[in-house]
């Protein structure tokens, strides 16, 4: 059984300029212990999807099932308890920590909210967590501004893991960090996954990081998932022309001074193109692509893509 199962989930935002279909009929599964990456360009809906899973944003339709229970139907205590098991780590370690709170307050707050332990016990758990994520022992009485970017992301990770979640949604957790720090944080996330048997949904636009970090990759374009494949298979044989373009756009020393760029910009999510949403930028597009929305087709085990022309 999947740990998390998402079925035809849609999240729409109503705005002055009309409805934005940020997430538009997405289905996915995450198995226990699996790291699934969600990649795509800005505006494709990947962050909204992440937030919809824990109901930080309420989905418009579809369902999210966590360990057999429908999260979309939950309220009150039940929703709170599922949020204990699904935690988030955010991109910007500067914006996601309250500057007026000590690390002690930041780390013990989730425990207090969920009624775990007495004050003394909570502080002991926080102290353990600080050591666990590799922060200095005297961190608890300090404020976020006293830490570097990498250390702040360690605090964000400690806060997410202190409730012993089973699934962690990481939304661009290393994008704001310098390269020399990125490796430290990625290694920490792998270490935590092994020790605490976590599953990750890893939202990222950085394909090189994804290639190292993910077991399986979902590629998202304008609110839809267009391809799903095990990581190595995606790099060796991407089926969807968008995935191929995305991979080709990653800077590559072997293509000196030659980009293979796809033309055009991402169309507005207010008014996505009819038929296949990628047809306006696709080198393979034909009449059928302009008329008919392609269905998700299987290409061997665990590999699927939504393209009329994929082979």
């Amino acid at each position, binding site marked *: 059984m999947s740990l998390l199962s998402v079925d035809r989930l849609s999240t729409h935002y109503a705005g002055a300029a009309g409805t934005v279909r940020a997430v538009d009929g997405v289905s996915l599964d995450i198995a226990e212990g699996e790291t699934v990456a969600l990649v795509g360009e800005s505006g494709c809906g990947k962050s909204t999807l992440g937030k919809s899973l824990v109901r930080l944003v309420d989905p418009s339709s579809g369902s999210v099932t966590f360990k057999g229970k429908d999260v979309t139907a939950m309220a009150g205590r039940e929703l709170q308890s599922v949020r204990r098991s699904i935690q988030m780590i955010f991109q910007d370690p500067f914006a996601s920590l309250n500057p007026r709170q000590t690390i002690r307050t930041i780390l013990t707050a989730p425990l207090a909210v969920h009624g775990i332990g007495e004050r003394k016990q909570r502080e002991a758990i926080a102290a353990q967590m600080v050591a666990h994520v590799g922060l200095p022992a005297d961190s608890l009485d300090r404020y976020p501004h006293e830490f570097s970017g990498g250390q702040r992301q360690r605090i964000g990770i400690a806060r997410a893991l202190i409730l012993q979640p089973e699934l962690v949604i990481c939304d661009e957790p290393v994008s704001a960090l310098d390269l020399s720090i990125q*490796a430290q944080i990625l290694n920490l996330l792998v270490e935590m996954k092994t020790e605490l048997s976590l599953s990750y949904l890893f939202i990222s636009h950085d394909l090189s990081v994804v290639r190292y*970090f993910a077991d399986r990759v979902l590629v998202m374009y304008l609110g839809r998932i267009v391809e799903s494949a095990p990581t190595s298979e995606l790099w060796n044989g991407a089926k969807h022309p968008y995935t191929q373009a995305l991979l080709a756009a990653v*800077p590559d*020393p072997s293509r000196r001074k030659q980009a293979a*760029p796809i033309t055009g910009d991402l169309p507005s999510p207010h008014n996505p193109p009819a038929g296949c949403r990628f047809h306006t930028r696709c080198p393979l597009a034909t009449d059928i692509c302009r008329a008919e929305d392609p269905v998700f087709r299987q290409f061997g085990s665990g590999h699927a893509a939504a393209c009329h022309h994929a082979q």
Partner: protein
Amino acid sequence: MAKLLEVSDFSVGFGAAQPVKGVSFSANPGEMLAIVGESGSGKSLTALGLMGLLPRHAKAGGQIRFDGRDLVGLRERDLRRIRGRDIAMIFQEPMTSLNPVLTIGDQIIEVLRIHEDLSRRQARERAIALLDLVSIPEARRRIDEYPHQLSGGMRQRVMIAIAVACNPKLLIADEATTALDVTIQAQVLQLLDNLRVQLNMAVILITHDLGIVAQWADRVVVMYAGRKIEEGLPGEVFDRPYHPYTNGLLSASPRLKADYHYRDGPLSEIPGSIVSAAGEKGCSFRPRCPVARPSCASVVPQLIALPAGRQVACPYVPAIAEKAHVASVG
């Protein structure tokens, strides 16, 4: 070939703090030079120094010879004539660099009319041609649009159009593609490279992205904590990094180990952070360096010149002793 730009021993100080500590490098006409480094390396301050855009209380030292003149200490009036005409710059965030209440046409026309004697109508025609040059579709209609009507990639193209409006000899791109999506980033880099050739313009690419450097740069300067610690051809520097920092950076980068997966083992790390460089009397990288020796704490390593313009500021790399010898006899 005469150098277009020769920076020697350039430094920037704020009171007691010295974020740029004597940097030297040069650029030839039509060359794409990359300056890489992480936050705190001094790469952006160096760029602002080239443009004469340092904050008023900053103290600049050393020399910046550009096209036969020294820019350090030049009067604001004279600088203003060079800036935007001979040296132009584009920044990371095109939304904050463009004026939201003026059309993009007005903003291109402004630059043209400041530096060149053009009528409004002539300037408008030139602006349309510039939008064409940076591949903005329907330039004649788009010229009257406001920045918010354009996508991020299009805005960065407008910034490039403004920057190249007066055919600059040098374009500085400070993390100009960092905020863009990867497919758009590839398009903008291709555009910069085409313009470099068409206009015979030198480009200084300031970036933290080693993949971009490897793919696009003719030469690379690696900076750490205010100093240049390595320089060379990208192929050579990335295939055989000499400085322990460059080496650490490349091994920590998942990009350059394409087939390496977390199940194969952890990424190699550079321990600590650049903050540890503060107050170091010797080599700034010493607190994080795997090959540091006692002497590194007191002596700032000098740049060692190697064949083919390669330079490295570390005497303790095995390959160095040998190569330096070859260089001195050959």
